């Protein structure tokens, strides 16, 4: 039975969204590969998913900032996965990033450069094979730059544009690229923040939404996990810049 199972690779497997997404795929019968910098933490999630679902779960070390090591990482996987989901994200500290440019560069590279380069490797291999799906978790923060988080937002905007372009490039070959904008999610990254209930998703909701968008019969290109965000972001997007720049957001 296991021979026929599809395989997914989850990049950023120690995050709450990554854990929930890998869990959703495992529950749907997929083999799961977890990639993370902290292998020990990822193994904890791998054991959890394997015990709960009975799925096979492997762990692979990956540093999203080491682009030189990426080809070796991809070729070192036991199998080229059917789907790759990248949930890597680092909010950083906006105020610090305004004065410490190393910190700003780390936020840019973690949210934009690293994920884009890595997914580029998978895109080329999927094209050569003629099949494969790519899911990138970006952010509503990338839809419009705000004074309180534009370093992170700018990086996510770049990643959103990368995914959009990649989708455009791969579509004629029948390969899928899905952009996910989760909105607020109750995770360790947002612990301690005041989050509005209606706009805030649980990690399990994000996982289920990703699985449905990427693997469901009615595939989607760009999803907001809670549909209400689409309206919120179109309102925010519609505010004229002369007014927007004076708002405290």
């Amino acid at each position, binding site marked *: 039975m296991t021979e026929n199972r599809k395989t997914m690779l989850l990049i950023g497997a120690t995050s709450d969204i990554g854990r929930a997404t890998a869990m959703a795929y495992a529950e749907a019968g997929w083999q799961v590969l977890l990639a993370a910098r902290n292998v*020990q*933490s990822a193994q*904890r*999630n791998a*054991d*959890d998913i394997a*015990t*709960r*679902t*009975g799925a096979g779960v492997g762990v692979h070390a990956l540093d999203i900032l080491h682009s030189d090591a990426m080809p070796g990482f991809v070729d070192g996987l036991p199998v080229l996965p059917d789907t790759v989901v990248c949930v890597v994200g680092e909010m950083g500290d906006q105020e610090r990033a305004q004065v410490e440019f190393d910190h700003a560069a780390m936020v840019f590279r973690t949210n934009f450069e690293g994920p884009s380069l890595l997914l580029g490797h998978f895109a080329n291999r999927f094209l050569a094979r003629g099949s494969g799906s790519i899911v990138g978790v970006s952010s509503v923060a990338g839809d419009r730059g705000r004074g309180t988080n534009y370093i992170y937002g700018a990086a996510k905007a770049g990643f959103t544009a990368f995914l959009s372009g990649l989708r455009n490039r791969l579509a004629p070959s029948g390969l899928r690229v899905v952009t996910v904008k989760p909105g607020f999610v109750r995770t*360790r990254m947002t*612990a301690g923040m005041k989050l509005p209930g209606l706009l805030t998703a649980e990690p399990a909701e994000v996982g289920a939404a990703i699985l449905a968008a990427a693997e469901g019969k009615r595939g989607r290109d760009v999803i907001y996990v809670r549909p209400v965000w689409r309206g919120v972001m179109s309102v925010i997007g519609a505010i004229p810049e002369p007014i927007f720049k004076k708002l405290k957001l």
Partner: protein
Amino acid sequence: MLLEGWGRYPRFESEALGLGDPLAVPGLVASSRGIIARGNGRAYGDAAIGTRRTLGALGLDRMKAFDPQSGRLTVEAGMLLSDILAAFLPRGFFPPVVPGTKLVTVGGMIAADVHGKNHHRDGSFGDHLEQLTLVLPSGQAVACGPSENADLFRATVGGMGLTGIITGATFRMKPVETGWIRQRTIVAKDLAGALKALDDSDAATYSVAWIDCVARGAGLGRSLIFAGEHATRQEVSSERPDAPLLPLASPGRLGVPFDLPAMTLNKASVAAFNELYFRRGARNGDKPFLTHWHPYFFPLDGVDRWNRIYGRRGFLQHQCVVPPATAHAALAEILDRITRSGKASFLAVLKKMGAGGSLMSFPMPGYTLALDLRVTDETFALLDQIDRIVVAAGGRLYLAKDARQSRQTFEAGYPTLGRFNDLRSAIGAPGHMASHLSSRLGI
């Protein structure tokens, strides 16, 4: 932050910290004092509120390993029982012991050494533990079990978190053919009949009695006894051919969205409810029927936040156990006090217990009675009177439910306290591991 137990009385300020990674626990434990672990907050009183700091364990929610051959399951201590049921009932495994709610953590089940409807046969949860991992007050993590650091193990099972922070556990799940319970209802017209019916149900895997706390006089203690067995595949397929063999919890839930006014549960409404419930149960008679596992084991989990029905001041649960020799006289006197006080308990549950477990475990051979009473000015005096009956009968109170017993009542009920205190001293626990329960009771 202001913390309270499931009974919503009492409330205390305590600094709340979440545990997310088992590897971070030793450092945190070694560098804090006045701490206690907290699982899902289902202890009724002050057991899971640290005098200074309360370490929330819900982030320790990973499963580690499962062996389908032996049923052996290893989990982190913040794992919810509901998660275990969701993962393993569809694979044909059931926990060896479950308490009256599935919304508890494994760490909490160990600390309170919980019992279920099968205690008379299978003992408490601690009796099924093969190993647990405990972070001592020093920050050292040690493995212990029935034959490994056994003294520490016996003090930790039922030790209300006062020997350190439990971070993981291994126990055996039992195979079941279906998620259905074959239930039989026995009607007892008075307390003596109820005790006899429980004795007669010794061979049943599960048994529990529901007592009508409003009935007085000759009908004092009239009860419905629910006996149950895990139904076989054959029983389900012949009686309910369309039913799934291993059903999950039904998603439909009721909820109590806000505190009900204290008047909702008055004497008349409870009496009417009890009368209805008793008649319905009696009508079902002795014919066995199939019940879904969820309402059988966790009827109140079907009502979200049911603790709000007692109003803003909260409620007290009083659960005692008394030995067989004194049980009838003591329970009759307790029920008489309750019914005469007019403070009819919404829920009164009677259960037969088998052999006792660990050093500070609640269970001992005899009968356990659980009552819920809304907090009013008179409730405390009434419960003090009941405590005196329990002590005179040679019984004790369940610490996981307790919010108000006196030190004298506690010390009379737990003669092994001295040994527990010696062990706590040896590992540097006094003052270090401290809940409001332990400081109230002088542990």
